[in-house]
């Protein structure tokens, strides 16, 4: 996986292309970031359709003012923060009675050599969904985006110490959740 800094540079290049060429150049930024953005947004909205709405709205906003993204100190965390804000807006607007606790809304993909691991992947995503949103987003940023706690703090607008403690609690809960899933699987 690319480091956050180099990925940020690539996001900046894509944003500069959009600033120069307009909406026609959005495909570059989409191909670069969409999977990561949807993955991050799903942990907030808890629903793939809402997450995709948030990502689409964010990328359209980027087209409106691409220079804002290209001039940002860290374009990738900046873009993630935009998606997070959009996801929170959608979450507030579409407050559901019951949070989706299974994975039926998710569109999943695994390569042929990962078939054996599919069960493990599902277990991880189910366990992530069992976490409070504040903790699951820290896990996503720390493990999948390989951010430091300082960078996570920048995205989430919280102190780095809070990000670290949320991560610690989240990992403990994840381990317990995966353990309980393992126990259930054993009984079955």
């Amino acid at each position, binding site marked *: 996986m690319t480091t956050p800094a180099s990925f940020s540079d690539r996001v900046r290049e894509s944003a500069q292309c959009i600033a120069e060429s307009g909406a026609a150049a959005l495909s570059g930024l989409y191909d670069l970031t969409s999977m990561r953005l949807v993955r991050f947004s799903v942990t907030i909205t808890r629903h793939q359709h809402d997450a995709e709405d948030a990502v689409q709205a964010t990328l359209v906003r980027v087209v409106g003012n691409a220079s804002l993204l290209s001039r940002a100190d860290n374009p990738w965390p900046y873009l993630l923060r935009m998606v997070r804000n959009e996801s929170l807006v959608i979450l507030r607007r579409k407050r559901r009675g019951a949070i989706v606790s299974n994975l039926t809304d998710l569109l999943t993909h695994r390569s042929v050599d990962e078939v054996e691991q599919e069960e493990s992947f599902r277990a991880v995503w189910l366990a992530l969904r069992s976490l409070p949103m504040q903790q699951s987003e820290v896990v996503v940023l720390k*493990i999948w985006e390989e951010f430091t706690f300082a960078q996570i703090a920048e995205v989430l607008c919280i102190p780095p110490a809070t990000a670290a403690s949320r991560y610690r609690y989240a990992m403990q809960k994840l381990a317990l959740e995966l353990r309980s899933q393992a126990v259930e699987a054993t009984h079955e």
Partner: protein
Amino acid sequence: MSKEYADASDDEMSPELLKMLESTVFAAGKFVVPSDDLRPQTLEAARDYGADRKGTYRFAQFILAVFVFVTISLPIFGRLASWRDSVASPTSLQMYEIAMKKNVGMDWGLFEAFSELRQSQASRFGQTNRKNVQD
């Protein structure tokens, strides 16, 4: 499945277990993907948004151009209107009023009014005419 975590307790996690858990979560990172529809939908929405913005920008430019034109042209038309009074011929109603003031009958009154008009026009443009004749 996840049998490694069967030993996980509520207490502080060991570094080994934490590392293993992190690698398990990391592996599941690419399990969820965007739908196939999202790409064309996003690009189309962005194109529409760009076109709307362009349209709004052009309309704003048009409004600005109209404003500038009106701002500049109003004083010019005012100045032209003041010149018109000095160069325009009298209307038929004005000629009729002048003829009636002569008090010598309608026909002669009109004749004298036109004569005066021609004289005043000749004196106004006389200089130009003389110049043309000399040329």
